[in-house]
């Protein structure tokens, strides 16, 4: 029904070249927020949040993207989940009040109403991240973007990658700085299905 409605809207709008705003829902199996942080000046530790959800509205004509993503902080994983004979694993430590404080702040959110487009391709998302109850601006550069029908299901999808960075101390996450870096690299990979 919805598809028919959108289809008829598009058909009516087509002669004027006007496209309706399209709404998309992020596919949680193909959408992940990754982060990288310096460890003691020796190496880079990468982590990932396994559970996130979100939606965005893409209006090609107005050149706007309105986006909201929710990340489950307890789903953080860095490959060290089994404590063995240690008091805790690194992932357990990351969920503790020293870092993500997942009990008190189970979700972090990213919201944006400002995107820069190059033609009809978003190239930069200017948004606000709320982490540990603190809201700060975080800009993501979209370094990959494609909208097309899914090759198997034929359903319209948009997917891509985006990168950015933040200083975790600005959100009040200060444990271990500077041995465990303050600068956090962010890499988001996503696919979203058209509603």
């Amino acid at each position, binding site marked *: 029904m919805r598809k028919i409605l959108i289809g008829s809207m598009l058909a009516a709008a087509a002669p004027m070249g006007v496209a309706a705003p399209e709404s998309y829902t992020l596919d949680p199996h193909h959408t*992940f927020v990754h982060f990288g942080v310096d460890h003691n000046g*020796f*190496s880079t530790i*990468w982590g990932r949040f396994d559970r996130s959800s979100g939606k965005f509205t893409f209006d090609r004509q107005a050149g706007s993207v309105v986006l909201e993503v929710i990340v489950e902080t307890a789903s953080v994983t860095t490959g060290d989940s089994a404590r063995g004979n240690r008091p805790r694993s690194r992932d357990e430590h990351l969920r503790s009040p020293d870092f993500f404080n997942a009990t008190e702040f189970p979700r972090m959110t990213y919201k944006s109403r400002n995107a820069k487009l190059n033609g009809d391709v978003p190239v930069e998302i200017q948004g606000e991240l709320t982490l540990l109850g603190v809201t700060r601006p975080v800009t993501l550069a979209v370094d990959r973007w*494609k909208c097309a029908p899914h*090759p198997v299901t034929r359903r319209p999808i948009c997917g891509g990658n985006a990168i950015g960075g933040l200083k975790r101390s600005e959100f009040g996450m200060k444990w271990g700085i500077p041995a465990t870096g303050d600068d956090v690299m962010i890499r988001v*990979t996503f696919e979203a299905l058209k509603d």
Partner: protein
Amino acid sequence: MRKVFLGALVAVMPLAAAAQVESYTIDPIHSFVNFTIDHLGFTTLHGRFDKSTGKATVDRAGRKGTVDLVIEAASVSTGDNDKGSRPRSRDEHLRSADFFNVAEFPRISFKGNVKFSGDGANEVEGQVTLLGVTKPVVFKMDRWKCGAHPFSKKEMCGGTASGKIKRTEFGMKYGVPAIGDEITLTMGFEAYKD
């Protein structure tokens, strides 16, 4: 046997030279092999192997070294490990015969020679064995540092290295080209001096 042989070799070398070859054990809690692969031309899927072990040697005067790494194939993790109402999760699929075939090939191994340039290691040339097939691969060292751990003061080396392989060359053909053939490997590692 190999260790005994190496030990004997080191013993007969002149003292000064013997001191130059340092042996390291990779810290599995701070060493991970990550990979990325194209998904349908839309996005880049990231994965990680959670369990690996290894040894390395560093000959600072000789400006060379070796790496010997073993990765547990079943420890592959891409953030999709809960099948829900589906027949299987992506991680389960990756462990199946379509991809890593972990029942038959529980380990992926890498043996390489470290090359130095300037202040440190800058390249590792070696052989990766995956699904029983051995092929050459070159890793570029993006980060490299040896020194004392800031708290324990134990001598260590750490860094990050990246390289590319084509999975079809190892017989892993499922889903190509919708799921990319080229895999970018990025490893972050720390190793303690023995």
